[in-house]
């Protein structure tokens, strides 16, 4: 009872702090796990970090399952947390540190894989799954639309999983950008198809008019382009704002994070692709922001971004493991195995067909080995899982169906992350895929490369066909004439600021090294 006593010196106020406390504990625990994995080189050599995190998540899940079963459901990955808090930092980092040059050089191929490839996968996997349902191999009743809902969420290659695995592999830049670019840009297609089929399934197959399909299929253009435009606008705004921050240096990093996050949220308000928005926001702002903010702010932005990404990724994979431990699994061997097979099979077919098409238009062809790695690198991840969680379950049949989808989805994710993730590195070595040589360019290299860029744009003018060298040249001209004067505080004096930038960076590096080597001076 309420004894009107003395003023309490100490009291237990658990509920007051529960949520932030649990979040902090999670972050702390995930970070300890990360440190632990890197203490032993052996583990990290065999397993990609993402695998270890999932395993750890499963272990934690089992512990909670037996220790506190009733709170289990509070600690699974829920899709709002994922889409609003965990995903944006990762895609922002991806856009901000995007190797722009190879991204735009390969944009045609990337879009082909992302749009046509995803459509192909969704429809092939969906109809094939319906095929096995019609054959009576599956115990849970479902119709074609249910299969398509499921295939639309399982077909998309996941940027988080791809990054987590490929960052450790170091394949050459153009191969990396093909897989990774696809995983970022297929978001528009996935979102549209998922929403459309879910809506159709709710309406019932009989009420769908042909016009619905046409509107649905074309709406991915609006969703993709809308997201991209919102991202570009916010990116330019961020560049513009940082033009005026030279007296308030401490808040410079804030603009980068808040404004890009707002681009994501703004796109989500309209139902556009938030992923595309924040990626393009990052791509666009980087150049102007870096020219405007101080060196220290720049370092802060960089490390804060890397830290956020790393922690989001860690939490996502641990959550994936944790969320796999639950009561409501529905296992159906035929459905699970067929889904797994169809995912691999159609991914391979899709890559082969689309690469054959893309190679007709590419100067540098995607060779057989690279096609294999592309098909093999199509990892599925937390986006698929979060979309399954979003499925409704008003009736018992639907709940059962959702559970089956969830189980199958987890199996596919675990298979791609574990089996493909663990074997991709040895395969890359075995097949002698060209690796990337990441290095800071030397002065000569930069100058000679810039010369080559101009030369190639010139050659394209001579033969009269406009390739990406021509368009890059055009963009650089627009950038120099209109955007840089508008968005940069100091008007660039040089026509080619890249060369000066490299020179400055090299000098700073030399100076730092000099200071370091002189650091052992005896202070008199």
């Amino acid at each position, binding site marked *: 009872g309420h004894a009107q006593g003395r003023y309490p010196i100490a009291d237990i106020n658990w509920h007051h702090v529960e949520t932030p406390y649990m979040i902090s504990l999670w972050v702390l625990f995930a970070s300890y796990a990360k440190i632990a994995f890197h203490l032993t080189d052996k583990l990290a050599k065999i397993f990609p970090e993402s695998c270890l995190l999932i395993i750890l998540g499963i272990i934690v899940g089992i512990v909670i399952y037996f220790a506190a079963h009733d709170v289990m459901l509070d600690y699974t990955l829920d899709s709002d947390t994922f889409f609003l808090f965990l995903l944006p930092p990762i895609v922002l980092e991806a856009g901000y540190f995007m190797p722009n040059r190879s991204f735009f050089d390969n944009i045609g191929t990337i879009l082909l894989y992302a749009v046509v490839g995803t459509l192909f996968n969704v429809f092939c996997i969906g109809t094939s799954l319906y095929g096995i349902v019609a054959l009576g191999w599956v115990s849970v009743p479902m119709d074609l639309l249910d299969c398509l809902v499921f295939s639309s969420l399982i077909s998309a290659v996941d940027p988080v999983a791809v990054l987590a695995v490929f960052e450790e592999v170091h394949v050459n830049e153009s191969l990396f950008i093909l897989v990774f670019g696809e995983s970022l840009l297929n978001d528009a297609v996935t979102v549209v198809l998922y929403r459309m089929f879910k809506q159709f399934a709710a309406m019932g197959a009989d009420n769908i008019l042909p016009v619905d399909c046409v509107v649905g299929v074309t709406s991915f253009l609006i969703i993709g382009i809308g997201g991209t435009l919102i991202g570009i606008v916010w990116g330019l705004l961020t560049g513009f704002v940082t033009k005026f921050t030279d007296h308030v240096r401490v808040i410079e990093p804030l603009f980068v994070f808040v404004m890009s996050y707002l681009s994501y949220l703004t796109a989500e308000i309209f139902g556009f692709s938030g992923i595309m928005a924040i990626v393009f926001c990052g791509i666009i702002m980087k150049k102007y922001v870096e020219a405007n903010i101080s060196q220290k702010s720049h370092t802060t932005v960089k490390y804060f971004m890397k830290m956020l990404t790393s922690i989001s990724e860690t939490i996502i994979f641990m959550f994936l493991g944790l969320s796999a431990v639950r009561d409501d699994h529905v296992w159906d061997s035929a459905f699970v195995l067929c889904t797994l097979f169809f995912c691999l099979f159609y991914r391979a077919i899709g890559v082969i067909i689309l690469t054959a098409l893309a190679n007709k238009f590419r*100067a540098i*062809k995607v*060779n057989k080995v690279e096609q294999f790695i592309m098909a093999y690198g199509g990892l599925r991840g937390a986006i698929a899982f979060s979309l399954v969680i979003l499925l409704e379950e008003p009736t018992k049949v639907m709940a059962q169906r959702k559970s089956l989808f969830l189980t199958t989805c987890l199996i596919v994710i675990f298979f791609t992350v574990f089996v493909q993730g663990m074997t991709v590195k040895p395969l890359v070595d075995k097949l002698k895929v060209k690796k990337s040589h990441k290095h800071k360019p*030397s002065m000569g290299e930069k100058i*000679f490369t810039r010369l080559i860029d*101009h030369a190639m744009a010139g*050659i394209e003018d*001579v033969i009269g066909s406009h390739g990406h060298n021509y368009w890059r040249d055009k963009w650089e001209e627009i950038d120099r004439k209109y955007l840089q004067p508008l968005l940069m505080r100091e008007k660039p*004096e040089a026509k080619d600021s890249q060369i*000066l930038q490299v020179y400055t960076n090299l000098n700073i590096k030399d100076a730092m090294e000099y200071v370091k080597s002189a650091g052992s001076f005896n202070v008199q």
Partner: protein
Amino acid sequence: MGSRSSLLLRDEEIEEIRRTTGFSHNQIIRLYHRFNSLDKSNNGFLSREDFLRIPELAINPLGDRIIHAFFGETHDSTLNFKQYVKVLATFRPVKDGSDNRLNSREEKLKFAFKMYDVDHNDKISREELLLVLQMMVGANISEEQLGCIADRTIQEADNDNDGLISFEEFQKAMERTDVEQKMSIRFLH
């Protein structure tokens, strides 16, 4: 070649060009049409003026040098179709196996090297480098600053300490760059 020959290309000629350059029949025809449309005086030869008439090339900061490299060591002031195609063959994408010599990495780099080397002595001097830098970076930057950049570049690349960059040293400096990719163009069929 007579003055009328610019209108038609004989099959044997196409065949020969195909063999030496590796272009396909259709690519050669397409390039030939382009050649003819550039050849304003219609005499079967391209002059430097013909190149300068290409609007984008005229505003390219290195337009002059590209043309210079096109004409190469031939001190002629004109280029016939075969010479034109031969230079362009340098930029054919490198394919495993079916390579002819014209589009090798070395030939691609040679083209870039020629853009610096105005006096054809197979070395890039500080002055030659500085000139190109001025074209690319612009006149607003002080000569002193550009000089520092040029010095640094030479110091990095110059292995034999003669103050000049030879073609071998140039190749070495570009060792880690994907020249095959950067210097390849897709020629339409």
